[in-house]
């Protein structure tokens, strides 16, 4: 139930607030810490997770292949 509420809330937020910002309005969005991916120096941490945990994917990391893990 909680999962469904979270999913519907996220979808509603995404599709109800498609603001169109001009480039000059994106100063804060373009901050390096606002990027929608992990920093390069975290790559080996994500690799460690893919070795030790069953779950992979949906995080920009590898989803299989390249080593004996997963």
């Amino acid at each position, binding site marked *: 139930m909680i999962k469904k509420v979270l999913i519907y809330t996220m979808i509603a937020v995404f599709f109800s607030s498609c603001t*169109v910002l001009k480039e000059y*309005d994106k100063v*804060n969005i373009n901050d390096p810490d606002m990027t929608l991916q992990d920093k390069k120096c975290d790559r080996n941490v994500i690799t*460690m997770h893919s070795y030790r945990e069953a779950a*992979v994917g949906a995080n920009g990391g590898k989803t299989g292949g*390249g080593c004996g893990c997963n």
Partner: protein
Amino acid sequence: MNSFKFLVYCTAFLVYVTGYAQQNQDTSKSYKKRILETTEVDFLTSYYSQEGDNAAVSGGLGSEELTDFTGTIIVSVPLNDDDVLTIDAGVSAYTSASSSNVDPFDGGQSADPFVASSGASSSDVWTNLTGSYSHSSDDRNTIVSGKLSISSEYDYFSFGFGGGLSKLFNEKNTEVSINANVYLDTWTSIYPTELRPFTSGANGLENGFFSNKTITGNTNYNPSFENFEDETRNSYSLGFGFSQILSKNLQGSLALDFVQQEGLLSTPFQRVYFADVADSFIENFQLADAIEHLPDTRFKVAAGGRLNWYVSETFVLRTYYRYYFDDWGINSHTASVELPIKLSDKFTVYPSYRYYQQSKADYFYKFEEALSTETYYTSDYDLSKYSANQFGMGVSYTDIFTKMHIWKLGLKSIDLKFYQYDRDTTFSSRIITAGFKFVMD
């Protein structure tokens, strides 16, 4: 030594390509804004260590001690205004008490699952080379990319290729993407040393391996063992992405990944002990009843989302959630939060927390719980039910003017991070990572 040569060759190649690209830049007649202004070079390194009492190599009971040192160089070269070539070369060297016990009878000391052996399997080196290429359209609303990769370690080789397409809409406020990757991997199977005399056609207990060893417990040792015939492992992934700017201070993304794996998905040197088979020992080491057997297909689905909030000039809040499930019966939740705090225009600190939990695979059994009548079984605790907490702290230094130089490379940023990871079992690990980013003058 081979790894060192590998890195030297890669670096030489990258310097050559960089020089070629710089020449091309000088003759460019286009005035479009470049995708990448100049060549960027990243050096990444990390040191990782772990310990625990549930080693899969010794059937779920034994030392999991492992250390790993990794070095990577990533060079991104602007070939022209629209195209970027990225070369990524890395080496990872590990030592492991767990994998050393593929052969625990090296004669150095009494065989024991909690004592590291000094055999060849106690360490290995993994090398990787990936080349990727991206092209952006003139209006910068379409990005096409492709990549090739190879990686190798003593018992594993991988060849991969893939591509992606991204489209931006709404004045670059919305982005949708699709990517696909294929990995064609091959094992060189290494089996627990006491099982090798029981390969089809071999002479079992009459083998010389047992001639100078005393078996205790069940002296009529007769394990269930056959070599794997298929040593390939193929992985096919398809991913979809969607990102949206929600306000001047808020943006988020959704990702959905599907992965199909086929082939040898078992790890050939991981032992299993059956509850309905009498135990045999040499010294303090229990002899394997079998190696793990897992299905030859696996289908995985992962759905994740990120939401980043620019709270103020000092604080940014980064959040992430992922739900994962596969057809081996595992489902998991991952949630993380990071709070970058800008201390000055040069220094930012990165406190973070990550929570992870998973259910067990249908085929997981604890030490001596599996029955020999089962078709599939493993005692790899990475496929068990557990939860884990990870705490992290990092610091970054950024100099947008790149005043500090090494040769023609100006230092743009340094990142240092430390993470402590603890399961609700005996397993824990820690990793320290460092990243150095340079831009070419």
